[in-house]
Structure formats: C-alpha cells, structure tokens
C-alpha cells in the first residue's frame, strides 16, 4: 500500500513542523510555499523562546504551552537557541503591584522563577534601568527564526518530505462534492503551472489562513495582527528583559547575536502581503525599550520590521486575544472534507501545533501513528541545503 499523501500549504513555522511530524509518522508530504522557508511572519518573529511568564496571569493555557515547549525545543534544537534565560523587572509601583499575580500565575503554570533584589538584578545585567525595584528570573531564551524553521525542514526532508519553494498556491482543487483534493500551483522559478493531488491538504499559512480557506468556501476566524520590531546595533543585555506587567507595547528587549531587538505593538490590517513600518511605532519602541535598558538611547537602529501575528479572533481584539492555537477540520466546521487548517499559536509552540495537526490528520485518515517529535533531535539547519547537492 502506498503512503497516504498530504500537501501542506506554507513553509513557515507550522508548515515545516507539521511536515516533520507527518514525515515521521510515515506520510508522503509535499510542502508548497510561495516564498522561501520562513519568508512571511515566521522569519520576522521577535525571536523570544517564551518561558510563558508573559502569559502567566492573563492567558494560562498559552503560558503552559510555552513552558512545556520551551523545554522541549532546548532539548531537540539547541543549535539555534541562546539559552541564557530572562528577567521580568519592575520599574514603577504599578509593576510592583503586578508581582503577586505574576508569582501566583507562574506557580500555577509550573514556570520556575526566582525573585531577585534590585542589586542582584543589576549585578546580573549591569545595563538595566538602575531604577529597577525588583526582578524575577525566568527560563526565557532567544532563537534565530530562519534557522529554527530550517532545522524542522531539514529533518522533514531527511524523512522524505519534499519542499516546493517559490511555488504559490493559486487554487484549491475541489471535487464534485465540494471537497478538497489537491492544489493548483504556480512555480515562480520556471513560470509554469501544475496540479498536485493528495489525500488531504493542510492550510498552514498563519495570518493568511482565512484567504486560503476561502478558496474552498471555508471560513476561519482569523485576526491578522501586526506588530513592529526594532533591532539596535549593540548587545547591552544577555538575557531577555521583560517588563513585569500585563503584556503591552515595547515591553520586551531581547539579545540576539550582537544586537538587541525591542518589540512590539499590536494593531489590525487588511492587506497582509505588505505591511509598512510605521515611523511613530519605531519611536515608541525606542522610548519603551529605554525604560528597561536606558543605554539603548546611545545605540543605533540597525533594522525595523513588521510581522503579522495570526490571532484567532472571536469578538475580542489585539492583546485580549488568547495566544493559543487551533486546528480546524473543515469537515466539521464547513462540511468540506480534505482540508485542515492550523493557525494561532506562537513560534515557541510550533512543535505542539504540528503535533495537534498531525493528530487530526491521522484521525481523519484512519492512520495509527504516535507523535515522536518531543524526543527526536532535529538535524542541523544546514542539512536543509546540504540535501540540495
């Protein structure tokens, strides 16, 4: 019997992680991606390997997902992670007042924290705002977004998955019953068109899932929500510095290579393919970042960019939306078979999102195979390109 075949649309974090999971479970996998690996939201992600501390008060489901996946990623893909931890720091009275809820939340979500005095925090990170009142350590980290995606893609390829980059989905192929049986694609490297058929199509296009699903007449409640990130040309801290308060604008400063990145904002857009960087938001990042690490003022901006989060919207908007993920079987939601959508979530939870999606795929296709991605170490990101030769 031949392997069941799945087409995944999108080679961002969820697409590559789902390809890896399904390939390990014995599926024949083809990934179609209009750009390169991680050229949409995933590549432009902030780069925080979240401990879950950010969500421990208001969004505990996400917080638990983050701490669990954080520990797994450290184990399976250490080659792309700066594992130096993070601090939540209080600068004013309102931050201090948040401390109690923060401690309770972290305890409830099994996030290991340690309280520091202001002096201890400044010894650890001398460039913090000297007005720091209190601090907590958390197991945050940072990662290289492209290399994280490539590591999953390399491992998927090793197990037979095929990646068709610069290959844009033009249409979903629909049979007489209205069910999805494949995709019509445009190969941008050769300017040719072709049809690819499969037993199932996974829509892993992040903020674009609504657009893709609409080709089949299916609906996904997605709220694309961009935010700005600004990179500065010096590394003044060695750990992720978070503001000890409810998630807000510009309240994370993270180190990466020789840089620091400050993020982010939260607003809504309709045109997803190009989101311009708004000058005023860059200024806000500088101002807010400076409250955590005053030395930022003396550094230079090295890059500024926008990434569009795929938030799953109900009635709420922006920061009030939970950061968990959801897998939609369109047979259940729209009575359209052959199409599964995965969206929401965070970079940190990419593996769990893939596990959930692969579970749904297995269940739909009657395949008995368990997920092994928690244990299988990923190949070097370089293997993705090595396999070209």
């Amino acid at each position, binding site marked *: 019997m031949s392997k069941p075949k799945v087409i995944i649309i999108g080679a961002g974090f969820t697409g590559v992680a789902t390809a890896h999971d399904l390939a390990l479970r014995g599926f024949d996998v083809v990934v179609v991606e209009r*750009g*390169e*690996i*991680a*050229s949409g939201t*995933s*590549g*432009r992600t902030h*780069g925080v390997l979240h401990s879950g501390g950010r969500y421990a008060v208001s969004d505990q489901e996400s917080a638990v997902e983050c701490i669990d996946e954080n520990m797994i990623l450290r184990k399976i893909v*250490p*080659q*792309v*992670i*700066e*594992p*130096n931890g993070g601090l939540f720091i209080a600068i004013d009275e309102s931050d201090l007042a948040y401390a109690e809820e923060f401690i309770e939340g972290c305890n409830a979500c099994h996030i290991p924290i340690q309280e520091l005095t202001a002096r201890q925090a400044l*010894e*650890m*990170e*001398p*460039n913090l705002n000297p007005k720091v009142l209190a601090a907590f350590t958390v197991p945050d980290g940072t990662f*290289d*977004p*492209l*290399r994280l*995606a490539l590591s999953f893609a390399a491992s998927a390829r090793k197990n037979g998955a095929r990646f068709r980059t*610069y290959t*844009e989905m033009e249409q979903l192929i629909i049979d007489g019953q209205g069910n999805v049986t494949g995709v019509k694609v445009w190969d*941008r*490297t*050769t*300017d040719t068109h072709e049809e690819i058929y499969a037993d199932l199509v996974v829509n892993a296009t992040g903020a674009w899932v609504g657009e893709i699903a609409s080709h089949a007449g299916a609906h996904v409640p997605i709220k694309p929500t961009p935010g700005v*990130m600004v*990179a500065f040309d*010096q*590394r*003044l801290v*060695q750990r992720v510095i978070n503001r000890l308060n409810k998630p807000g604008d510009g309240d994370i400063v993270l*180190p*990466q*290579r*020789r*840089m620091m*990145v400050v993020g982010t904002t939260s607003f809504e857009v309709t045109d997803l393919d*190009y989101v311009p*960087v708004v*000058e005023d938001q860059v200024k806000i990042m500088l101002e807010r970042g400076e409250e955590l690490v005053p*030395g930022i003022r003396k550094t230079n901006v*090295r*890059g*500024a*960019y926008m990434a569009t989060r795929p938030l799953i919207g109900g009635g709420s908007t922006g920061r009030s939306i939970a950061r968990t993920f959801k897998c939609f079987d369109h047979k259940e939601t729209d009575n359209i078979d052959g199409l599964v959508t995965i969206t929401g979530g965070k970079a940190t939870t990419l593996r769990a999102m893939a596990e959930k999606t692969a579970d749904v795929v297995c269940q739909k296709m009657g395949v008995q195979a368990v997920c092994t991605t928690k244990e299988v170490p990923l190949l*070097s*990101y*370089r293997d*993705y*390109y*090595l396999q*070209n*030769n």
Partner: protein
Amino acid sequence: MSTPKWVVTFQIYRKKGNADPHFDEFKLEVSPDEYVLDGIERVWAFHDRSLAFRHACHHSTCGACGMRVNGAEKLTCITLIRDVTQDGGVLRIEPMRNFPVVSDLAVDMGILYTRMEMVEHQPVNSDAKEAIQPEARPAGPVGEEEDYIRLSDCIECGLCISACPISGSSPEYLGPAVLAGAHQHGIKGNEQLLKLVDSEDGVWRCHSAFECTAVCPSFVEPGWRIMDLRKQVIGERFKRLFRGSSPKIIDTMEASK
C-alpha cells in the same frame, strides 16, 4: 513631519528557468529611510508577483537577503536606501556572484552550508570563544564563570564569497566565510580540519584582497581570521618539525609549560 519621499528606479535582475536573464525596471516612491529589501518586497507585493528573492528576518540575524546593490554586496534588510542612491536615482539589484541562481535574485546556498558544516563552524558558541578581539566584545557580565551562550557572529549570508576575487576564479577555494568558520572552531588538535585549511584550496589561496572584511555585515572579519589561521598553520607545522607528530609528546610538552 515624516521625511519627503524619493522616486527610485529599481533595476532588477530576472531569470526564469532556461530563459536568458534580463533586467526589469520598477519606478517606486520610497522613503529614503526605508531599507532596500522593503522596496524589493513592495515590487513583489504590488508590481510583479513572479519576483523570486530570499528573505526572512529583516534585521540581519538570518543572512538570507544578501544581494548586489549597484555593484556592491549588501545585506538588503539593513541597507538604507539613502545610503546607496539618491532621489531620482537607480538601484541595480543583482543576485550574489559565485552561487548558482535559482531564479531572479534567489541563489542556491548549498555549497556554503556544506562547507560550513565541513569546517565544524559552531552556530551557537560561548561569547568568549566567539569574540576575536577583546575590545569588540559586547558589554555585560563576561567573567569566566559567567560566560553566556550566543548565536555566532557569522550569519552565513555569503556576501564575502560573492565579493571575493579568488572565489570567482577558483570555485574550489573554500572561501572567506568557510575559513573564518574554521578559525572560529579552532584548528588546534584537529588533524582533519588542519589538513583542509592547510591545503591548496585553503588559506594559501587567499590573495589578501580583504573584500570579505569590507562587505561583512556581521563583524566576522574573515580577512583577519584567514591571516591568523596562516600563523596558526605555520605554528602547527613548526610544532611537528621539532616535537614529532605524536599527540602524546605534544600533550606532555603542553602540560610542562
């Protein structure tokens, strides 16, 4: 109060399949404080959806968007338009040299990644091992016990290979990023790596043009590292000459210092 807009003509290298390459022109209204990559992405988003180019992080950590801009190697995500052209000016965008073109501006990085793996370059490293000069080390707690792990300076963008005159004429030359990668890993006690570095296609092929160091967006200083590797190679050769090649003897000598 935002800066006045410029009009800039993007002349972009195009290649599809076996067709002959050509340049397409796109006239864009830009802010001089935007990055070259922003303009290229807008060409794709609003003018020509067939344009193929590599990009991911947009802030110089991933190394995907290296291209030639008006004849010079640039990481386009951090190259301000105002630094490479003027109002009414031209931006000629070409793929990097010395890599096979996949399509348009996208090149196949396979050869670089293969060689980086060959020389055992470490993608994450302790900060102490990563820094080449103490004064270049970032500020922060850097005591011996308190060293931190960070992503390597080299982002494997390939710009140095594109700019290197030797890589152009001798494809088998390992190339600046790769030799810098060997330097970062260290050749001491690594027979295989030493052999690779001390070969015809290793450090001796470099003609000290230092184009690599000039275009490196990430402070790796490949030129300096190649020169330092040469010293190390000669040192290793001397060691062998006087001490014999038995590792056991070398160990004893080291221990008695």
